[in-house]
C-alpha cells in the first residue's frame, strides 16, 4: 500500500539542519574551498526556505504565497511548518498550505495538522482531516476519534475514512463502536472506515483480525452491496475455510452472495477441487459461470468434471465445457473433442475445433497423428483440421502418406492441411503427389494444394523456390502438367511465361488446352501479346470468348500502365474486328470505355452501326465523351452522334453529356495523380510541409495514374480525389503539363478541398494550408508560361469528407487564354 514519506527518515534532514555558523567553523577543519562550496549550497537552501517562509508571514499577495507553498512542498523542512500551519484556516490558501504540509515528513507537520483541527472549520477542517489520513500517522487517532461525534457531515465522513486509512487498533475500535449509527449515510461511512482497516489487516497478513471485522459488518443490517463486500472480505480472510463459504453461497445463495462467490472463484487459491465438485449439483446457468471461472483459474484439476459436462443436455453448458477444455485439457481429452467436432455442427463444433487448436498439455500433436490410423473418415477429417490449425509441421510425412492413400473428404482435408504445413524442403514431395493421383479430380486437388502451399511459404518467408514446380511442368507427364498449369496464372515471372508459351505449343492437345485456359486466367500483362495472337488463331476457337475477356482485363487493369497507350490501341484495333458474338463485342466496348481516349472513342463509334450492339455502343460513346480530356473532340463526336442517331433516349443522353462538357471547358481536366501519402500522428495541416516523393526532384517509381474527369452535372469541373483514394488526414499530388506557343503571362484560378500547394516548373508559386470545401472563391495566382511544355504540380491535403480540386487557366486579364494545350502523359512530365 502506498504511504507518504512521513514514515521514512527524510534524506535531506541532516543537510538542511546545518546553519551558517556551523559551516564556517567547519571551514577551518576541512579546507576553505570545500567548505565554501558546501556553505553556499546549504546557505542557498536555507536562504530560499527562509525567503519563502517570509513570504507566507508577510502581506505578500495570495499568488506569491501559493507559489511559496509550491516551493515548500518540494524543499520545505520542519522550519516552515508554523508558517504553513497558519494558513490552514485561510479559505483561499488552506489548500495550498496542505499541498505542502500533507507530504512534509516529520513529527512537526503531524503535530501542526493535529493542532489545527481545533482552529479550522468547514471545508478547511475536512481537508486537514484528509491530510492526516494520507499521512497514516497514529498520533492523529485520538483527535480523529473525537470527530466521530461531530455533527458536520463532511467532517464525520472524512474522519471515518482517515481513521480507516490509519488502521490502528484504536482507530478500528472507535469505528466499530459507531456501527450502531442510525443515520444510514453515516453508517455506510463507518463501514467503509472499518473495511479500510480490515483491508490493511489482510494486506499485512492479520487474517484473524480482518475476519472479525468482516463478520461483524456482515451481521449488520446494511445495504446489499455492503453485505456482499463484507462477505467477500470474510472469504478472503478465512484461508481454506473461505472456500467452504463460497461453496455454501453457490449452492444455497442468496443470489448476490452467489454472484460474489462466483467472482471470487476466479481468484481464491486452493479452490479448484471444491468448485469442480460443485458442478454436477448446480443449475445450468451456474454451471456455465463456474466452468468459465475454472477456465480462468487455469488449473487442470477441474478437467474430469468439465469433461462430464460436455454431455450436458444444455447446449450453453456443453459449449462452455468444450471451450474450457482448450485451456485446461491435455492430449487425454483429444478423443472427446474430436468426437464432438466430427459429429456436430454449429457453435459447438466451432468451439471444439477452437479447443483442439489450443490444447498444449501432454503431447497433443503426436496423439492426434496416432489417432489417424483406423479412424472413421469423419474423424480423420477433424484430426487433419486440428493438425493444420496447430501448425503441426512434424506431421507432414504422415499427411503426405494419407493424401496418397485416401480419397474423398479425407484426401481433401489432407491436402488442405498440407497446404498450410508443407515447408520449402517438402514442396517436391507434394508436387510428386500430383503425378501419383489416379483421377483428374485428384490431380486437380493436389495441384491446388501445391499452389496454396507456395503462397503460404511466400507469405511466411517472403520468398518461395518454385523449382520443383517448374521441373514438373517441363518434364512431368501430360496429366501432371495439365493439373499444374493453373499455377502459372497467378504469377508474373519469366519462368511462368516461358512455361506457358512452351505449353501452348505442346504436342499433347490436353496440355495445350490447359495452357490456354491458364493464359486466360493470367495476371501477367506481359502475356497480352500472346493472347492477341491466339484470338486470331482458329486452333484456339474453343477459347475465343475467354481470350477476348482476358485481353480486355489485362489491358485495362491497374498495372496495365506498363503497356504503351499506342501499343494497346493497336491491339484493340486488331481484336475488335475479331469479336464475333454480341457478348464478345460488349466486352470490347467495356474495355474501350475504361480507356476513354480519342482512339478508343473512334473505335467505339464503329460499333454504333452494328445492330447487334448498337445500344451498348451508343452508351460507350457517350460515356467516353463525358470523361474525354479533349473537349473539342468529345463535342464533335457527340454532335455527330446526335445528328445520326434514331434513338430518342440515346440522343437525350448525348445532349446531357454535351452540356456537361461545355460547362467543363474552361477548366484544366487533364491530370495524373499519385497518392495517398500519410504519416502517423500527422494531420492534414502538418502534412502540408512534409515532402513526399512526388515533390522531390530525384524521386523514382511513383505510381502516377490518370485522374478521371467528373461526370456529375452539378460539378463537372471538379477533379475528385476522394473517389479515387478515400481516406482522411493525407495528401495526394496531381500533375499536368501546359504547352504554350510562346512566353506569356496568365492566371491560375484554383479551388481546392482542402489545402493546396502549387509548383510551376519546379518552383513553388502558391501555398494555402487550409481546411475548406471546393466551392467558393478561388485562389488566384499570376504565372508566366515559358515557351514549350510547362509542368504544373499540385499537392492537395485532405482533412475529412470531400477531397478534390478545380483549376482554370486564363490570360493575365482573366479572359480565355490562347495557344495552349494540355497533356498529362509521362513524356511531358518531369519533376
Amino acid at each position, binding site marked *: *500500500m*502506498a*504511504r*507518504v*514519506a512521513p514514515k*521514512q527518515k527524510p*534524506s*535531506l534532514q541532516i543537510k538542511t539542519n546545518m546553519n551558517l555558523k556551523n559551516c564556517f567553523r567547519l571551514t577551518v577543519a576541512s579546507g576553505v574551498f570545500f567548505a565554501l562550496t558546501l556553505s553556499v549550497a546549504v546557505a542557498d537552501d536555507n536562504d530560499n526556505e527562509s525567503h519563502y517562509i517570509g513570504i507566507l508571514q508577510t502581506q505578500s499577495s*495570495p*499568488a506569491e504565497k*501559493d*507559489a511559496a507553498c*509550491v516551493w515548500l*512542498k*518540494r524543499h520545505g523542512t520542519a522550519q516552515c511548518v508554523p508558517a504553513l500551519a497558519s494558513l490552514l484556516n485561510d479559505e*483561499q490558501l488552506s*489548500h*495550498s498550505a*496542505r*499541498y505542502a504540509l*500533507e*507530504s*512534509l*515528513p516529520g513529527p512537526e507537520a503531524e503535530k501542526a495538522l493535529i493542532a489545527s483541527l481545533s482552529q479550522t472549520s468547514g*471545508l*478547511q477542517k*475536512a*481537508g486537514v*482531516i*484528509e491530510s492526516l489520513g*494520507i499521512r497514516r500517522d497514529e498520533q492523529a487517532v485520538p483527535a480523529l476519534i473525537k470527530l466521530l461525534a461531530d455533527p458536520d457531515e*463532511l467532517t464525520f465522513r*472524512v474522519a471515518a475514512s482517515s481513521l480507516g486509512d490509519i488502521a490502528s487498533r484504536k482507530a478500528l475500535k472507535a469505528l466499530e463502536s459507531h456501527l450502531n449509527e442510525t443515520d444510514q449515510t453515516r453508517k455506510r461511512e463507518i463501514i467503509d472506515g472499518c*473495511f479500510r482497516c480490515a*483491508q490493511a489487516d489482510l494486506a499485512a497478513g492479520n487474517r484473524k483480525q480482518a475476519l472479525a471485522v468482516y463478520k461483524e459488518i456482515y451481521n449488520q443490517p446494511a445495504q446489499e*452491496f455492503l453485505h*456482499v*463486500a463484507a462477505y*467477500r472480505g470474510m472469504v478472503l480472510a478465512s484461508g481454506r475455510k473461505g472456500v467452504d463459504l463460497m461453496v455454501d453461497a453457490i449452492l444455497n445463495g442468496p443470489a448476490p452472495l452467489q*454472484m*460474489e462467490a*462466483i*467472482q*471470487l472463484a*476466479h*481468484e481464491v487459491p486452493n479452490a479448484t477441487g471444491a468448485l469442480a465438485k460443485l458442478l454436477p449439483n448446480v443449475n445450468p446457468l451456474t454451471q456455465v*459461470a463456474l466452468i*468459465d*471461472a475454472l477456465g*480462468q483459474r487455469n488449473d487442470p484439476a477441474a478437467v474430469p468434471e468439465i469433461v462430464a459436462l460436455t454431455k450436458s443436455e444444455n447446449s450453453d453448458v456443453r459449449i462452455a465445457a468444450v471451450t474450457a477444455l482448450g485451456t485446461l485439457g491435455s492430449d487425454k481429452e483429444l478423443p472427446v473433442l474430436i468426437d464432438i467436432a466430427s459429429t456436430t455442427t454449429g457453435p459447438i463444433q466451432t468451439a471444439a475445433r477452437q479447443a483442439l*487448436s*489450443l490444447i*498444449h498439455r501432454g503431447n497433443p500433436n503426436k496423439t492426434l497423428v496416432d489417432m489417424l490410423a483406423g479412424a472413421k473418415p469423419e474423424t480423420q477429417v477433424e484430426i487433419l483440421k486440428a493438425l493444420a490449425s*496447430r*501448425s503441426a509441421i512434424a506431421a507432414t510425412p504422415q499427411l503426405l502418406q494419407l493424401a496418397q492413400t485416401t480419397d474423398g473428404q479425407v484426401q481433401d482435408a489432407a491436402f488442405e492441411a498440407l497446404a498450410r504445413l508443407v515447408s520449402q524442403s517438402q514442396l517436391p514431395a507434394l508436387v510428386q503427389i500430383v503425378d501419383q493421383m489416379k483421377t483428374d479430380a485428384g490431380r486437380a486437388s493436389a495441384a491446388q494444394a501445391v499452389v496454396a502451399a507456395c503462397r503460404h511459404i511466400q507469405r*511466411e*518467408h*517472403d520468398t518461395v523456390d518454385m523449382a520443383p514446380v517448374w521441373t514438373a511442368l517441363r518434364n512431368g507427364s501430360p496429366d501432371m502438367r495439365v493439373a499444374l498449369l493453373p499455377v502459372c496464372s497467378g504469377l508474373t515471372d519469366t519462368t511462368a511465361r516461358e512455361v506457358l508459351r512452351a505449353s501452348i505449343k505442346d504436342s499433347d492437345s490436353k496440355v495445350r488446352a490447359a495452357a490456354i485456359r491458364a493464359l486466360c486466367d493470367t495476371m501477367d500483362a506481359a502475356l497480352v501479346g500472346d493472347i492477341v495472337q491466339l484470338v486470331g488463331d482458329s486452333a484456339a476457337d474453343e477459347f475465343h470468348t475467354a481470350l477476348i475477356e482476358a485481353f480486355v482485363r489485362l489491358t485495362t487493369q491497374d498495372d496495365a500502365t506498363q503497356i504503351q497507350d499506342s501499343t494497346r490501341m493497336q491491339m484493340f484495333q486488331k481484336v475488335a474486328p475479331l469479336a464475333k458474338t454480341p457478348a464478345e463485342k460488349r466486352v470490347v466496348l467495356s474495355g474501350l470505355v475504361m480507356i476513354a481516349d480519342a482512339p478508343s472513342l473512334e473505335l467505339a463509334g464503329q460499333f454504333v452501326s452494328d445492330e447487334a450492339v448498337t445500344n451498348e455502343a451508343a452508351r460507350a460513346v457517350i460515356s467516353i465523351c463525358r470523361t474525354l480530356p479533349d473537349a473539342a473532340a468529345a463535342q464533335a463526336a457527340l454532335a455527330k452522334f446526335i445528328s445520326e442517331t434514331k434513338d430518342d433516349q440515346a440522343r437525350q443522353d448525348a445532349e446531357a453529356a454535351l452540356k456537361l462538357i461545355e460547362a467543363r471547358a474552361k477548366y484544366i481536366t487533364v491530370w495524373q495523380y499519385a497518392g495517398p501519402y500519410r504519416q*502517423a*500522428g500527422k494531420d492534414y495541416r502538418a502534412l502540408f510541409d512534409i515532402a513526399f516523393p512526388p515533390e522531390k526532384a530525384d524521386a523514382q517509381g511513383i505510381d502516377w495514374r490518370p485522374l478521371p474527369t467528373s461526370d456529375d452535372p452539378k460539378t463537372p469541373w471538379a477533379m475528385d480525389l476522394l473517389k479515387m483514394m478515400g481516406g482522411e488526414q493525407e495528401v495526394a499530388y496531381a500533375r499536368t503539363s501546359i504547352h504554350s506557343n510562346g512566353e506569356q503571362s496568365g492566371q491560375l484560378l484554383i479551388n481546392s478541398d482542402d489545402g493546396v500547394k502549387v509548383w510551376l516548373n519546379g518552383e513553388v508559386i502558391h501555398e494555402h494550408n487550409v481546411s475548406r470545401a471546393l466551392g467558393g472563391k478561388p485562389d488566384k495566382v499570376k504565372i508566366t508560361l515559358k515557351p514549350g511544355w510547362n509542368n504544373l504540380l499540385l499537392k492537395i491535403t485532405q482533412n475529412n469528407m470531400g477531397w478534390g480540386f478545380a483549376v482554370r487557366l486564363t490570360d493575365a486579364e482573366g479572359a480565355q487564354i490562347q495557344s495552349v494545350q494540355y497533356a498529362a502523359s509521362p513524356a511531358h512530365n518531369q519533376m
Partner: protein
Amino acid sequence: MGFVGLGGQGSGHLFGGAWTYVAGGYLGRKEIQVLATCDVWQNKRDSACKRVNDAYAERYGDANYKACVAYDDFRHILDRDDIDIMFIATPPHWHGTMAIMAAEAGKDIYCEKPTAVSIAESRAILNAVRRYGRIYQAGTQQRSEYGGNFRRAAEFVQSGRIGKLKEVYAYRDGGAIFWPPRFGEGKPVPNGFDWDLWLGPMPFFPFDGKAAAHRFDIGELNWGQHHYDIIQWICGKDGTGPVEIFMEGDRSCYRYADGVTVYGKPYPGEPIGADGGACFVGTEGRIAVDRDALISYPADIVREPLRPDETHVYYSPSHSGNFLECVRTRKKPICDADIAHTSATALLLGGVAKQLKRTLKWDPVAEQFINDDEANRMLTMAKRPPWLV
C-alpha cells in the same frame, strides 16, 4: 449505465466513434440501458440525454420515452440503485476521485485513461475497487482492439520469438499533473457551466476561459498510459514495476529488476510505434507494434501463427464487450484495476523523473522511492474539499 463526461471521448463511447469499434456505441447495445447523462456543461448533458431518449423512443416505439435523466452532479448517479455502471470520461483530474466514490457506492466502473494523476491516487483506486469487489475496466483498449496486434506482440515476445528481451522503446515518455497558478484574473463563467464542479479536487482558481481536459498535463499524461499499458503486458510485467527511473536527455526511461530497460523515445529509424505502440528488442530480433501495424525483424517472427505450446495471453476481441461480459459474469476484465495501477504507475514514475530531472530508485512492492524524500513527496497531490476520498 450512467455516463459522466460527454465531451469528445464520452460522446464517442456513448454514441459510437472511431475508437469505440462498435457501431452506435453503448447506446447501440441492446444489453444495456442508458439511464443518465452527466456533465458540468448543461448543453452537453441535455443534448446527450435528448439523443438517448429519442433513440430509445424510436427503438421501442414509445414516443413518451424519457427514462434517461440529465444530471449536473455525478453523485445523483451514485445514489441511484437502478444504475449498475458508471462510465467515467471526464478530464483526468477527476478520474481517480470519481472512480473511488463510484466503488464505494457499489457501482461497476469503466474509466478512461489516464486512470490516475498521482501514484498514491492510483493505489487508492485499486484499494477501493477491491474493497467492494467491483468490476473495473481501464480505457486502455489496445489490449482488445486493433486486430489483436498488441495481443499477438505479447504472445510472440513472451514465447521467446525475439530471444531474451533486452530493451523497449516506448515512443513516448512519462507524464504527470501540475499544480496550477491560482490567483489570476477571472472571466465570467458561461451560463450553464459549473466551473467549480469542473475543477473538483483540483485547487480552486477563477475561470480563465480554458476548460480543456488536458490543461494540467505534464509530458505524456494523455497518451502515455496506452503505451505503458501494452509495454507492461508485452513484457509480462503486469502487477510489477520498475526499480530505477532515469533521464536520457529530456526523456524519462526506466529499468526493471531483471535488467529490461524501457526508453521513453522511438526506436531510431522505426516509424511504427507512434500510434500507441512500442518497439521490443531481444537477443534474436525485434518487434515493432502499434495500432496500425505489427512487424518484426526478421520478418518471419510475426508471420508464423502462434502454436498451442507457446504463450497465450488474455483474449478479448472487444474492450467494451469484455467489460460488459465481466459485469455480467464477474470474470476478471482484461484491464482490471490492478493492471491499470501498475500501468499508470509506470507512466507517473516517468513524470516524477521528468520534473526532478535525475535518477530515482523505486521499490515496486512498498510503492516508495528509496532514499529520496523529495520524490516521495510527489506521490500525492492534496485534494480540494469536499472531494476527499
